[in-house]
């Protein structure tokens, strides 16, 4: 961890990715197509955007169903209110804009009109975390989960690749009620083995088995964690990876189980460690009275600079290298034992 900033400097490549590239990205195409399929099967599905259909993969839906594609202009409060109104008429709005605007700009509309209103709206926040890294801190979204985790009844999903996003979108549409889908950049290679995998809202998924330490991740950090875990296995540390594509309702059983079995937990996220998975896991193990060694990787109460996402993940200390180093670090220290638990006495 301590060396990560020095090391990351050597990785900074400057402007290598632009907004224009986003239109070519493969993983996002996968869920864009899934949305068109869903629209074909269900005439209740409509899309609503705030001038970002082209860069958020709603464009294919708009071409297929122009009368069911609404653009409210660059007006995020109205975006959410209009979606609530459409849902009140029995439609299923899929709303999409950048996460920082969908959630932070329109937060009280999301809470009141979708959450409390219990409207059947699927809100997709794209370019979450540092996915639009070159946009700088105004376009980074590191606080969306901290806000929305506090909204009762809201389902929060954060898939890690295009196929999982497509499946999550189908599950979100099948779920009656408001859902927030957190989506990153979509540059990662879609994992074709998951093409037909069903998505179940709720449970975490064990991606890598292990018994010394558990890494919990969601979104773009899942693949980073998987790679780090495999390196750690080769270094002799048995590392478990749990993917948490559902952040609300939270799968507390899996967290408690991992805490008891590995006694060392590392959360990794492209989000603030305040209010994100780090908080969720800390709250869960503390309430369960479990003694664990807990480390939290993610945005650490500071604004990250402008840069390409890969560099920002390194600078922020939540990329593969940072995870690998953290695994070794927490495993150099003796893990708490069951005797330390309040619960076990």
């Amino acid at each position: 961890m301590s060396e990560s900033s020095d090391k990351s400097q050597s990785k900074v490549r400057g402007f290598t990715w632009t907004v224009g590239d986003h239109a070519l990205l493969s993983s996002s195409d996968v869920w864009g197509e899934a949305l068109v399929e869903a629209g074909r099967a269900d005439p209740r599905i409509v899309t609503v955007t705030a001038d970002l259909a082209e860069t958020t993969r709603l464009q294919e839906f708009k071409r297929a169903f122009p009368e069911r594609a609404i653009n409210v202009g660059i007006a995020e409060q109205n975006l959410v209110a209009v979606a609530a109104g459409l849902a009140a008429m029995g439609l299923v709005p899929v709303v999409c804009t950048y996460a920082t605007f969908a959630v932070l700009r329109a937060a009280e509309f999301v809470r009141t009109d979708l959450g409390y209103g219990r409207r059947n709206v699927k809100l997709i926040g794209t370019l979450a975390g540092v996915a639009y890294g070159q946009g700088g801190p105004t376009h980074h979204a590191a606080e969306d989960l901290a806000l929305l985790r506090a909204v009762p009844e809201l389902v929060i999903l954060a898939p890690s690749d295009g196929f999982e996003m497509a499946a999550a979108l189908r599950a979100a549409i099948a779920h009656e009620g408001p859902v927030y889908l957190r989506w990153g950049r979509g540059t990662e290679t879609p994992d074709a083995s998951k093409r037909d995998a069903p998505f179940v809202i709720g449970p975490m998924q064990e991606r890598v088995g292990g018994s010394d330490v558990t890494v919990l991740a969601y979104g773009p950090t899942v693949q980073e964690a998987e790679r780090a875990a495999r390196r750690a296995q080769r270094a002799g540390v048995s590392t478990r990876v749990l993917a948490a594509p559902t952040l609300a309702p939270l799968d507390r059983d899996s967290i408690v189980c991992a805490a008891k079995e590995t006694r060392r937990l590392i959360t990794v996220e492209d989000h603030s460690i305040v209010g994100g998975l780090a908080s969720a896991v800390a709250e869960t193990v503390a309430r369960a009275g479990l003694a664990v060694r807990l480390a939290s990787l993610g945005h650490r109460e500071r604004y990250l600079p402008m840069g390409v996402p890969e560099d920002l993940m390194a600078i922020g200390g939540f990329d593969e290298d940072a995870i690998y180093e953290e695994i070794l670090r927490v495993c150099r220290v003796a893990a708490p034992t069951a005797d330390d638990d309040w619960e076990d006495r």
Partner: protein
Amino acid sequence: MERSLTTDEHRRLLGVSLRVRERVVRTVFRAGSGHVGAALSQCDVLVSLYERHLRVDPARMDEPTRDRFVLSKGHGGLGLAAVLAERGILADHELDTFGESGSPIGMHMDHRKVRGVETATGSLGHGLGIAVGMALGARIQRWPTRVFCLLSDGECYEGSTWEAALSASASGLTGLCAIVDRNRLTMDGFTEKEVPLEPLADKWRSFGWRVEVCDGHDHAAIDACFSRAKDQGPAVILAETVKGKGVSFMEQRPEWHYGSIDSAKLDEALRSIAEQHRAALAAIASGGAR
């Protein structure tokens, strides 16, 4: 063109307004406090809407293609509850629980708890956008649904109101009709002294809306505006109202935005409401506007 109200119909509407105002002040007395000023200023507009223009069946408030009414000025919940009770959508015994802890009927009305309420409001600046979504939803499904939305003039300070106004005219929502309860009072005082809203009609017109301006306590004028707005939307009716209308000691006084009534004040309020009602009837009889 629209037909003007018959004298009998005008008398009937005045009678409904009288009973709604009585319900409002009695409910505030029973509950201990409430947004009484706002409830009284919007009263006649809501009575006209629920008695003559809103196409709903009180027995079937879940019929999908019914007209929708969104009370964007959520603090008018007491006034809406009184109108719903008068229309038979809300039971009297339900209204009697207004403001009690745990009651479904409170300061801000809520579709999760009260039959006949279309959406939860209270936070200002949400309703018009929701109404725009409803009107779009009706059009996409080819329903004949009209959507009405009552805003306070104070909501014209909210940026989200104008976001919604822009999208409504851009979408050509002919079935959408907004009403602004233009009583010129907000919590801190008079709108034109605090942060002026005028020229308000020009603002709406420049956002692409058909604008009607009327005396918001004149049933004939209100009715004519609703009729003219039909299929001509998005249309907005700027209803020039008096906050606390009907109760002389509350009229145009900021302190009666939200207040309490003791039994002496209740008697005085009921007397004032009855007096103003008699005067309105007399004005019809003599061919006056009211």
